């Protein structure tokens, strides 16, 4: 019982240390995030909606294309969220990659969410401005469906950024994530005939199926992002059992007699 209590105390102590670390990391993380790209993406998204003002306020069913364009532009700005020029320096720090990246996402994803909410609000206002004061209830934006699409696009972008950071190095994930998102969008457009993902309206019969696919894409992207956010130096518990340090072999090699009189 005493041992269990000690263990619990140690765990809660470790958690306390971890949360203190996270709190201390907040300010430096805020400084290293590329806010300009993120805010530029948000501004471009608003610009697209403003440019499509005429189409949105035309009346009738709300066109979803401007919202989708805004989502892609927002994600292109968010592609640089995982870039950390100091990543190589802090690799050896106590705080794990998962903690650092989680903190980074916790700070930026709400900003993306706010920008997306602002885009939805602007689109619905523009759509409402085009309708008269008729007795027929105006069609509303399919917020949930569009949110799943935007979240999946963001997930794909961040997963691509995490994979690229692992293979290309810190600070270069965004450079690969942007073109990857473009390729993803192009693939969706090209294969739309066989695997439709962008139905034109929520009243279309394929809407639910398309959004189930978007949800699957979101789950897959989240798994990839989580897997590539694990510390590369981490040893898996399954492997740890089999792995034995080869100290014996090294010692034998080191203790060999010098060759040709060299030490």
């Amino acid at each position: 019982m005493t041992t269990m209590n000690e263990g619990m105390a140690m765990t809660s102590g470790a958690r306390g240390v971890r949360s203190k670390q996270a709190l201390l990391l907040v300010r430096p993380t805020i400084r290293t995030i590329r806010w300009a790209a993120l805010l530029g993406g948000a501004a471009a998204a608003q610009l697209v909606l403003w440019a499509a003002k005429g189409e949105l306020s035309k009346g009738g069913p709300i066109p979803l294309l401007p919202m989708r364009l805004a989502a892609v532009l927002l994600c292109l700005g968010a592609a640089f969220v995982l870039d950390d020029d100091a990543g190589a320096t802090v690799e050896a720090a106590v705080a794990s990659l998962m903690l650092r990246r989680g903190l980074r996402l916790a700070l930026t994803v709400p900003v993306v969410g706010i920008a997306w909410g602002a885009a939805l609000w602007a689109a619905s206002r523009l759509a409402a401005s085009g309708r008269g004061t008729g007795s027929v209830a105006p069609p509303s934006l399919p917020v949930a469906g569009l949110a799943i699409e935007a979240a999946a696009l963001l997930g794909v972008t961040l997963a691509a950024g995490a994979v690229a950071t692992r293979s290309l190095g810190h600070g270069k994930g965004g450079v690969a994530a942007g073109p990857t998102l473009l390729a993803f969008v192009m693939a969706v457009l090209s294969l739309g005939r066989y695997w439709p993902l962008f139905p034109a309206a929520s009243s279309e019969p394929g809407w639910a199926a398309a959004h189930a696919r978007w949800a699957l894409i979101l789950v897959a992207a989240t798994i990839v992002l989580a897997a590539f956010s694990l510390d590369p130096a981490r040893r898996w518990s399954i492997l740890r059992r089999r792995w034995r340090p080869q100290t014996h072999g090294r010692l034998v090699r080191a203790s060999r007699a010098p060759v040709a009189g060299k030490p």
Partner: protein
Amino acid sequence: MNVAAPLGTAVAPDAVVGVRAPRTGRVILSLARVEGRRLLRHPVFLVGIAFSVMEVLVGWSDLPSGTHHSVVEPLWPAGFPIGPLAVFGFVAANLAATRDRLDGTEELFGSAPLSPRARTAALLASAAWAVAAGVVMLVPFVGGFAIAYEVSLPDVVKLSEEPLVVAVSILAGVALGRLLPTRVVAPVVAFVALVSIVGAYAQPVQPWGFLALWVIPDSLPSVGWHILYLVGLGTCAATLALLRDGIRRSLVAAAVIGVAAVAVGAILQLPASCAGGATPCVFR
């Protein structure tokens, strides 16, 4: 090793043995060869090629069913593979042009004997390799298409705009990378270009569509003026990229010629300038 050289003085081995340094043009050509090969092997450009091949396959599989092919616009499907190649070529060229800035090696390049302008010229010349890739990809598709549907030779000539679209997009990628070397701009511009290409597919006869890089060949009243328009755009992009490293009289003259070509080509390619009037010219 030159023993007589004072400490801290770098002496080029060529200077010691009296061999002439190669001409700048030849060096640019050598560097362009390297950059061109790098561009062709760039993962982003390879993705563009993969999408182009996919578009060819999808377009080819649709032809027998008649999904896209129509009597009014028989050449329309032949442009499908160019869009991805142009968009991803733009991104790859932009990444090549911003490479030194992103890697923080501008100072290292600054100590190299070749001037920044020559390196920019080599990057611009590397567009030829991408154009060659575009032509190699397009020729079998267009050939098979023209034979299968008995498209006339003058109509096939209209397709010469398509490799030029790839060239202009790569020149624009280099220019943007040299003038605005940031990470976020190129994907955003590429996405806007992608949307405009898809828009051109969807609404082929909008008046603004004639000012885009790619116009559906069937809708072109005169391919010559559109090619002049594209050449002008390419000249302007290349000149802008080179002007970043200093203004020269020859560059200013090239810029003026480019702007004039854009203006003349843009006006004369419009359907209103067609001898038969607007509507019949667009829909012929």
